[in-house]
């Protein structure tokens, strides 16, 4: 599964109705100033960032410079690959101007679940489809 596919799955999950309310916003909302490093390539982290306002650069370090791979904004999720299953961060994310985001860690899963149990069901359905798809692709390699 590519990073893009995974992001789509997580987006579906997080867009479940009632996933954000004022309490969630107060509890998990963060503001980042311009040019803040939000995620650092090579780090291990289990936080997921849901951008509520502003934009971020997705960059990868090449020598002493950062190459911008993409710019993402409101409604996008970042850091999702590490959220459920620990993995090494594959890119550096830097705020472009002021950025508002909800930041969830693994330990907050209970709060997210309480806010919207439905999104776990949507997420499981999406992940199941991806598993079936990948098994199909592995089978196709044999023929």
């Amino acid at each position: 599964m590519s990073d893009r596919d995974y992001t789509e799955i997580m987006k579906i999950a997080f867009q479940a109705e009632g996933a954000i309310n004022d309490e969630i916003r107060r509890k998990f909302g963060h503001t980042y100033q311009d040019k803040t490093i939000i995620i650092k390539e090579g780090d291990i982290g289990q936080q997921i960032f849901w951008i509520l306002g502003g934009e971020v650069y997705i960059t990868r370090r090449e020598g002493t410079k950062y190459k911008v791979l993409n710019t993402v904004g409101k409604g996008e999720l970042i850091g999702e690959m590490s959220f459920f299953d620990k993995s090494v961060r594959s890119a550096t994310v830097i705020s472009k101007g002021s950025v508002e985001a909800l930041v969830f860690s693994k330990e907050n899963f209970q709060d997210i679940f309480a806010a919207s149990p439905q999104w776990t069901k949507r997420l499981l359905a999406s992940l199941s489809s991806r598993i079936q798809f990948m098994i199909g692709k592995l089978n196709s390699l044999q023929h």
Partner: protein
Amino acid sequence: MTEQELQYGEQLRAEPGTILYQPGDAVSGSSIYYVVAGLVRLDLPLSERLSVYLHPDSVFGLVESLLSSPRLTGACCLESTILYRWDREGFDLASSVSWELAFNTITGCTQYLRVLNAEFSGRLRLAGASGAGKGA
């Protein structure tokens, strides 16, 4: 697992070597499993077998149940194993009251996907290298 979650399903004990299901089996009834204790192996029916080992707290058998598909893998108990199992409705109820169960299930799915992705990439690389060798 708490009594709250357990009330929606049933417990079973399996001896080493017990085959819970095989690829292509139809899915019906209590088809979603949770490993309470012991060890289970999932086997993908490929030319070179691909196995995933499941330890306590793992959930399996869910994918086919959610997709209403025949079994995609086989499942075999490698040790004396205690399992818990639900039908689809029971699992939905249990996972809607237990964030731990929901979390374990999602984590298991993401880990399984990573294995499949890595295997696919690895086999593609091998196929590419072998093709390049033949071409040369």
